[in-house]
């Protein structure tokens, strides 16, 4: 027992005092930091970047906020791929495990229930406002989606009883809704104007708002189901059973 304690302490001390390899690593890291620091130090000052280009095309973009214009109009392809990345993350999470719901009611206090009852509708309202505000001020699909996701996390943390009973099909449709609408609009624009995501000028504002709303809902659902940490309960109960049987038989 004593020797074990001593060796544990020795290992802990060894972790604090760096050994040779770690010192070498530290040295290399310092070199890297110095090089990067010199690069940052000698970067040209007062370049306007793409500010003028964005400001020139702002009127054609259909929205007044420059960040939203860049996000959904000028660099819409980035955002499309980013929404796809979110969808891929959910697919990855769902392929790993089933959502660990306890199945019984958690002992939540009345204060917590009251907070949930007050906050969740308010968060939905704030999310909708943020999406709407995105066209002229700070805000947009990602902020709104993040607030929706936080509301979902709040519901999940409270462990309400109806959450595990949410059917999988509407959830899947909700997850795919935003990206699918984005792709459909992109292809529609390709047919109409000859450019992928090249919105027609009069309809740009409305299309952007449509995409933002759909994406906010999907992003919120995505983040909440990433927090839930697995696929929902009733994933094809009829079709899963036979495959399980065959798996067991083939197992060596």
């Amino acid at each position, binding site marked *: 027992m004593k020797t074990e304690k001593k060796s544990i302490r020795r290992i802990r001390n060894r972790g604090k005092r760096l050994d040779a390899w770690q010192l070498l*690593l530290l040295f290399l890291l310092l070199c890297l930091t110095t090089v990067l620091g010199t690069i940052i130090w000698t*970067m040209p000052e007062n370049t306007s970047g*793409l500010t003028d280009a*964005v400001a020139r095309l702002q009127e054609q973009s259909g929205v007044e906020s*420059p960040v939203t214009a860049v996000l959904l109009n000028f660099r819409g392809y980035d955002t499309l791929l*980013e929404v796809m990345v979110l969808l891929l*993350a959910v697919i*990855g*999470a769902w392929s790993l495990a089933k959502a660990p719901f306890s199945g019984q009611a958690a002992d939540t206090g009345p204060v917590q229930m009251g907070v949930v009852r007050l906050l969740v509708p308010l968060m939905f309202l704030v999310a909708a406002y943020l999406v709407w505000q995105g066209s002229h001020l700070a805000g947009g699909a990602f902020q709104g989606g993040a607030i929706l996701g936080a509301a979902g996390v709040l519901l999940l943390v409270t462990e309400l009883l109806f959450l595990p009973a949410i059917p999988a099909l509407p959830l899947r449709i909700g997850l795919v809704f935003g990206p699918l609408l984005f792709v459909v609009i992109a292809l529609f624009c390709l047919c109409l104007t000859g450019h992928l995501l090249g919105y027609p000028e009069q309809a740009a504002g409305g299309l952007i708002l449509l995409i933002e709303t759909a994406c906010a809902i999907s*992003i919120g659902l995505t983040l909440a189901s990433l927090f839930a940490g697995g696929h929902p309960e009733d994933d094809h109960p009829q079709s899963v059973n036979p495959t399980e049987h065959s798996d067991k038989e083939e197992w060596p």
Partner: protein
Amino acid sequence: MITTLLYSMTGLLLFAMGLFTLFIHSHPLRKILAVNVMSTGVFLIMVATAYKPMPLGNIDPVPHAMVLTGIVVSVSVTALALLLACRVQETSNLDLLERKKQARIPEESRR
């Protein structure tokens, strides 16, 4: 100008600290935290280069849009990484790991 420089250097320091921790520590949660700190440092550098003080006119919105996308992606990647880490710990053979650790301790105390 001094503000840009200050925040850029902070981002650089955050990046370096995160990278060092990523190499040194072995706990998976600590590694994921370190990656998050690194990404925050990179975002800080990007936004700091776009910064201009108020009277000099508008700021560049393109880095802001990129950072915004980056933050959302980094959160989803973090969630996936955490799930993978939990899965690894659940399915790995903990007894074997502990036996190996105990076998290593006397060996090192002999040195």
